[in-house]
C-alpha cells in the first residue's frame, strides 16, 4: 500500500479507542447501529476532507470484504 492513507498506528491508547467504538453501539438495535455508523462515516469523512485519502480508504475497506 503506497499512497496518502496513513495505515500505521496513529491513535494513542488503541485499546481504549477500540472499547469506545464498541461502547458507542451499546444498547442499540442493529438498525440503530447502522444509522450511527452511517453518521460516523460522514462526520469523519468530512473531517478528513482529502478525496485521495478517502478514495484509498474506500478501496481498502472494500478489498477486505470481497
Amino acid at each position: 500500500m503506497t499512497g496518502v492513507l496513513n495505515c500505521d498506528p496513529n491513535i494513542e491508547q488503541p485499546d481504549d479507542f477500540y472499547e469506545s467504538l464498541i461502547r458507542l453501539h451499546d444498547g442499540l438495535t442493529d438498525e440503530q447501529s447502522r444509522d450511527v455508523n452511517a453518521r460516523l462515516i460522514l462526520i469523519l469523512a468530512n473531517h478528513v476532507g482529502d478525496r485521495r485519502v478517502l478514495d484509498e480508504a474506500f478501496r481498502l475497506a472494500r478489498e477486505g470484504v470481497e
Partner: protein
Amino acid sequence: MLKTYKYPEFHYSRSEDQDAAPPAHHPVLIVGGGMVGLTMALELRLKGVPAIVLEQGETVSDGSRSICQAKRTLEIWDRQGAAAPMIEKGITWNIGRVRHQGNELYSFDLLPEQGHKIPAFVNLQQYWVEEYLIQRLSALGGEIRWRNKVMGVEPHGDGVTIEVDTPDGPYRLSCDYLIAADGARSQMRREMDLAFTGQVFNDKFLITDIEMKADFPSERWFWFDPEFNPGQSALLHRQADNVWRLDFQIGADADNEEEMKHENVIPRVKAMLGEETPFELEWISVYTFQCRRLEKFRHGSVFFIGDAAHQVSPFGARGGNGGVQDADNLGWKLDLVMRGLAPESLLGTYDEERIFAADENILNSTRSTDFLTPKTPVSRAFRDAVLSLAQDCPFARSLVNSGRLSVPATLSHSSLNTPDEEAFEGQMTPGAPAADAPLRHDGREGWLLDHLGGGFKGVFFGPRGAIPHHLDVGGVRIDILCVGDGGIEDVQGWIARRYDGRPGSFYLLRPDQHVAGRWRRFDEEKVKSALSRAVGKAS
C-alpha cells in the same frame, strides 16, 4: 379541462405538398412541435433557414409538465423575441427552502448577484410556454403543420424521406435534414431502431396542480419526510395564474388509478396545506422517471434534440431546459453548413457538445433521484444520516440533494474552442455561455446579451476605433463591440468583472453566445484562426 387555461385549437389544413408529385422536398423538417421543436423552428426562422414543423397534435402541451424555465433558456428565447410575455406572465423566483421533518435545513438564493436582465428562474406552465413560442413563430411567418404525424423515416445518401399521416391520409416528404424533436417516446427513435439506455427509477410521484389563492411566497419548498407524507418527499412550487405545483413521492408500489382519484388526492393536499386553505384541483398525473440517452444524437442527416435524444428526472429542471439548449447549439451550425460557410464536419460537433451537456444533466438528475429514492438499505441509511446531521452540521447540508437546478453546460473540452494562452480570472473560459451585464450604449441603458445577438461577435475592452469594426473570415462576419470610449459603457463595471476585461482584452463569441476564444491583446490573425476553428475548420 383546466380551469385556469383554455387550450388553443390549431387546425389542420391540407398543404399543397399533399397534391404535388411525391415526395415534395424541403431543406429542413422538424418532427414535433413541443417546447424544443418550436425553439428549433424559431432559431432557424430567425437565421433564414427554411424549416417546417410537423406536429401530430392540434394544441399545446397536455398538462403543465415543465414549469421551471431557467435563465439560460429564457435568454435564448429572449434573443428569439419570445421571452417577454413569458417573464411577464410567469412567476419569478430565486429562493429555495429545504425542510426535513419539521425543520428548515437550509435555503438558497440562485441569483445572489445583481446585473442580469433575466432572473434565475421563471415558473410558467409548459402549455403557456408553447403557446407563446407558437405566437412568435407565427408572427415570423413560420409554418407548423398540425395533425401531421410522422410515421416512417427513411434516411438515404443525401437526405431523408418520411411518411406523414394526416386526416386526409398519408403523404410523403423529403428533406436534406430531419430534426427529430418528437419527445421522450420518440417514434423517430424507434423507426430508426436506436437504443435509448440508462437508469429507470421505480418510485412513483403523484404530481398535481391546484388553483389556490394563498399568500405563500414564490419560493421552491422541498420536504424530506414531512409529517404529511411520512418517509417520502414533497414539493410545492408556484406557477402562473395562482396555480401551484404539488409533488408527492408515493413509493414504488402505489396504485396509479387509486392515487389519482380526487377523493385520495384531496386529503393529501389538505394535509400539506392545512384544512382551511381553499383550493381546486387542476391537473393530476403519476410519473416514474428515467435518466437515459441515445448513444449518438446525430445519425447522418437526422438530428435528435430534446427528450427524443435524452431524458432526465425533473429534479433539477434539466429536461426542457437542456433541450432548448440543444436547439440553440444546432441552429447556427446548420445555418452555416447550409450556406456553405462551414464544413459538414461542424454538424458532428453538435453530437460532441450536446452529449457532453446531456451527460452533465443526466449525472446531476441521477444523483438527485438517487438521493430522493435510495435503492438499497445502506444508501437509505446514508441518506437519512445526511438529513439527520444537516440540521446541526453545515457540511451535511451540502450533501442534501433535492435537485441541482439547471445551469447551462460550459463546453470546456469542445474541439471548437481555442485554448487560453494567457491567464484570466472568472468563469468566462472558452466554452462557457456568455454572462450578461448591464451597459449603456448611445445614451441608452441595455444588456450585453442583447448586444451579442445571434452571430459571431468580438468583444474588445478598449476604445472604439482602436481595432476594426468587423472582420470577415471566409464569408463569416464577426462584428466587434468595444467596451470603452465611443463604444459600450460598462456602467456598473460588471462586464469587466465578469469577463476579467483588463484593457486590451478580446473575446470571440459564437452565435449561441458561448466563448470561442480570448486573448489579452487583439491579434487579427489569432482571432481569424479561432473563428476558423469555431466553424469546424480545425487549424
